[in-house]
């Protein structure tokens, strides 16, 4: 599914990057070592972590986008890094669980 379609259906806010790419598969979790070994290329990564290291992990794993749950805000240096590294960051007021359920429903 295209990120733009996901943004439209779940009313997501685009914090950084563009939504032209598609995502394939989802990983949800906050521990960076876990994410580092489980986020696959083109995955959507849902997390409540919002520091600059999230951007490094998203870049290294080649995630399609980071989706920040519960309206957490990227710290300024992370936002800057996301823009520099061309990482798409999305945001939603929903919890990680709610986002997983909604995305699961969309995939059916």
């Amino acid at each position, binding site marked *: 599914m295209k990120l733009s379609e996901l943004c439209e259906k779940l009313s997501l806010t685009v914090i950084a990057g563009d939504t032209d790419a598609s995502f394939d598969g989802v990983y949800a979790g*906050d*521990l*960076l*070592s*876990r994410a*580092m070994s489980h986020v696959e*290329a083109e995955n959507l990564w849902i997390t409540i972590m919002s520091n600059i*290291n999230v951007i490094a992990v998203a870049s290294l794993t080649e995630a399609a986008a980071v989706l920040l749950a519960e309206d957490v805000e990227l710290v300024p*240096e992370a936002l800057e890094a996301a823009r520099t590294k061309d990482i798409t960051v999305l945001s939603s007021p929903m919890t990680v669980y709610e986002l997983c359920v909604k995305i699961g429903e969309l995939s059916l």
Partner: protein
Amino acid sequence: MKAVSAENWGMLMSEPINFHFDVDGENFSSAGEASVVVKKKLRQLGFPPDVIRRVSIAMYEGEINMVIHANGGDADVTVDDDFITIVLKDTGPGIPDVSLAMQEGYSTARESIRALGFGAGMGLPNMKKYTDSMEIDTTVGVGTTITMKIALNS
């Protein structure tokens, strides 16, 4: 850095290629930078995605460990015909019990570090899991050197 295209890196790898990085201690803003650079270089050299992924994970975990526990250190990545070798050398506190540190979930990271999403206790286990060999040479009060190898053409 030599410019080697994806098609012919194998033929031109007559001498090893070396990358060196000074990893800045306690600087979480730049933590992961060396890994990102290595990943970019390996991609330019035309390595397959799974090799790049394994090197990225092992290198990132090692880099983060040096930042969290050892006030930084030196990272060297060497590419030759047979292996990608990552050597991480620090003059930190050393690892008192290596087998304990190798257990998944065991971590001595401070609470402030955990709040950033680190300290899952997966660093060393991930480094071992994603490389073909890993040697830890550590002395308490002196430092730690970790050598990881990822085999090519296997």
